[in-house]
């Protein structure tokens, strides 16, 4: 506990059980770290994840052995895919019983080897302090990620002297911060030689806290910026250079800009298939600069002309100061980009983001999200689950700053939104936290409403309820000739009553005219969660869309 305290841990998201009771007894004896009792261990990992995404600090989980440990796997994988720092403590049966199939034993270190950045089994209490410090260092440095520490019961009950470790040294782990000067200068030259550059920004910009310097960089040279799902908020959504999201459900203009560019400046993305579409058709005429903290990301999927391994904030700062050396060249370059930007504007005018407005009193999902954006003035922390509502939110909600957007990008975890919102609300008690979810997703971890009620957290949950697994239904409509195999939710709970039964507030909204009033009402509630069930039109699609395996310029538009 002392180590955690020294490391500045505020919250432990957890669930007690047999082999961690010694640790829970220690939690009881202290006051500095608050323990949040969840209802399912998966919830604990997503809460820690939400907390970590909005603060940039590691989220910490504590659960018992066996089923509790295996319940963390989805949350750990979610964090792994999106590079989120989490430290997860699991209990383990006593050392002598390991391998004997003891009650609630599982080889969690073996199970999580591929879904954590690193993991430990602590066999001797003398190693515990060192391992805890290493775990936090590994989780938060370099490319962040989850680290698991498995603590057998006899280790947690043993006594040891606290050393007060200050600095962590790992022989095999030295995250590289800044690349060599040579490639940086080459990169700057390549930029100045380009006529149709696009800045392609990923989650790495948010993770490294590079939003400010990247905005300065784009503004200085006048380069249009497009973002991945994970990069949203890393560049101001209302900046004229902002092209919004690209990829499968990105804007037509953003995807056209990508595929017609002559230089991609990729800052901290990992070239996910949801972004690139068909690789053979992806930005084929463009030279590519790829900056990533993780050397193995560079050249993994797309061959690049210049690979820069380093921290986005530091590297972009260096690029900016190199470019600034010649203000005249910068001025000329900015002017030369005019025709390119005009071309992008034409694409945007041809095929703007379009969705049908309310027709005959029906409620449209996009309208609901637009109204949430307006009611919160774009200042809320938004979490989502996975599916249509997630893509509509990504398209419509404009984020003006980083770390206000929590969504499971890499793994696509349904059930992520509500627990992540709880973690975010704990980090920022006075901010509005909205979980935008779907009727399918919310039912995957709805039990965490109890956690929010117990902690008096005013998280808002907006269910975009179309009585379908919406994205599945959309794919079935487009690619399986409307055979809606098992995508319709034929039994739906009364979400209002469900919310009330937990001690939360529930609203049902069926008409567009009610949306604003109910949102206003819900924002006034400060002492408990609010769940709003929006019954939206049943068969609405997320558009535009690049069908899986197609090129970015082969979008379905409407």
């Amino acid at each position, binding site marked *: 506990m002392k180590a955690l305290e020294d490391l500045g841990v505020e919250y432990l998201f957890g669930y007690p059980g047999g082999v961690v009771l010694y640790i829970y007894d220690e939690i009881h004896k202290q006051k500095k770290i608050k323990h949040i009792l969840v209802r399912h261990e998966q919830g604990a990992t997503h809460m820690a994840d939400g907390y970590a995404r909005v603060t940039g600090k590691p989220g910490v989980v504590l659960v018992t052995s066996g089923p509790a440990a295996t319940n963390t796997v989805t949350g750990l994988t979610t964090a792994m895919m999106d590079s989120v720092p989490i430290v997860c403590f699991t209990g383990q049966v006593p050392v002598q019983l390991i391998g004997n199939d003891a009650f609630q034993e599982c080889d969690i*270190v*073996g199970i999580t*080897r*591929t879904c954590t*950045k*690193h993991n430990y*089994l602590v066999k001797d209490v003398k190693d515990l302090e060192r391992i805890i410090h290493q775990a936090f260092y*590994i989780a938060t440095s370099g490319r962040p990620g989850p680290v698991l520490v498995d603590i057998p019961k006899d280790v947690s009950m043993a006594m040891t002297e606290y050393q007060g470790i200050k600095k962590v040294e*790992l*022989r*095999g*782990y*030295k995250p590289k911060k800044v690349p060599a000067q040579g490639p940086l200068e080459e990169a700057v030259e390549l930029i100045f030689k380009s006529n149709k550059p696009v800045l392609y920004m990923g989650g790495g910009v948010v993770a490294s806290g590079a939003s400010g310097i990247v905005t300065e960089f784009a503004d200085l040279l006048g380069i249009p910026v497009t973002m991945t799902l994970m990069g949203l908020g890393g560049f101001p959504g209302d900046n004229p250079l902002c092209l919004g999201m690209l990829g499968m459900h990105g804007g037509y203009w953003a995807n056209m800009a990508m595929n017609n560019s002559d230089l991609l400046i990729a800052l901290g993305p990992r070239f996910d298939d949801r972004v690139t579409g068909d690789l053979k058709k992806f930005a084929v005429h463009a030279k590519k600069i790829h900056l990533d903290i*993780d*050397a*193995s990301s560079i*050249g*993994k999927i797309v061959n690049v002309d210049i690979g820069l391994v380093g921290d986005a904030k530091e590297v972009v700062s260096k690029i900016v100061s190199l470019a600034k050396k010649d203000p005249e060249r910068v001025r000329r370059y900015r002017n030369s980009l005019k025709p390119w930007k005009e071309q992008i504007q034409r694409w945007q005018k041809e095929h703007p983001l379009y969705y049908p407005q309310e027709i005959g009193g029906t409620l449209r999902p996009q309208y609901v999200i637009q109204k949430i954006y307006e009611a919160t003035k774009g200042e809320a922390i938004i979490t989502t689950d996975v599916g249509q509502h997630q893509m509509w939110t990504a398209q419509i909600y404009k984020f003006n700053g980083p770390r206000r957007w929590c969504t499971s990008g890499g793994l696509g975890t349904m059930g992520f939104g509500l627990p992540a919102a709880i973690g975010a609300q704990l980090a920022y008690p006075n901010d509005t936290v909205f979980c935008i979810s779907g009727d399918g997703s919310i039912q995957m971890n709805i039990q965490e409403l109890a956690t929010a009620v117990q902690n008096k957290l005013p998280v808002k949950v907006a269910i975009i309820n179309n009585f379908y697994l919406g994205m599945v239904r959309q794919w079935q409509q487009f690619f399986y000739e409307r055979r809606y195999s098992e995508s319709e939710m034929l039994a739906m709970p009364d979400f209002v009553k469900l919310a009330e039964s937990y001690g939360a507030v529930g609203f049902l909204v069926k008409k567009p005219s009610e949306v604003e009033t109910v949102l206003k009402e819900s924002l006034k509630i400060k002492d408990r969660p609010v769940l709003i069930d929006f019954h939206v039109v049943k068969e609405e699609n997320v558009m535009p869309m690049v069908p899986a395996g197609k090129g970015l310029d082969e979008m379905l538009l409407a």
Partner: protein
Amino acid sequence: MEKRHTISVLVENEFGVLARIAGLFAQKGYNIESLSVSPTTDATLSRMTIVTVGNDHVVQQIIKQLDKLINVLRVEDLSHEKHVTRELFLVKLEGRSRSRSEAEKLALEMGGKLIDYSAAAFVVEVTGNEEEGTSCLEKLKKQGILEVVRTGVIAVQRGEHVLVSPKEKL
């Protein structure tokens, strides 16, 4: 172009490290042709030699992914450098029709030595690089091999260059 690569890896001598490395290959769908592990003069470190086949792009990824593992200190693809490789073979041969001196003679012809002899079978120890090993096995086939056990390749770079941990390098 698919090529054979010999990769040297210096790792921390902790339990689970081999599983991490083998798991990485399995997880990414890379094929291991041979893998050998042993302690070094530093008790806290082990050295692995991994032989894998793939094009340069794949092998570059393997190296980056290996380098990413926390317990891995150094990774080098020796295929780009001048290096020597060795493998040890223990070959058990049918012995009924051979006297001890015949068996010894056969072992010598193979550039190896006889390390066990009984009336029914005998064991020849041979070391060599891959080519030598294969040609030796080809020749022995005709003599009635009962079984072969191989250590897997180990390799070291020629010249003064050594694979050391970053700390020792400083």
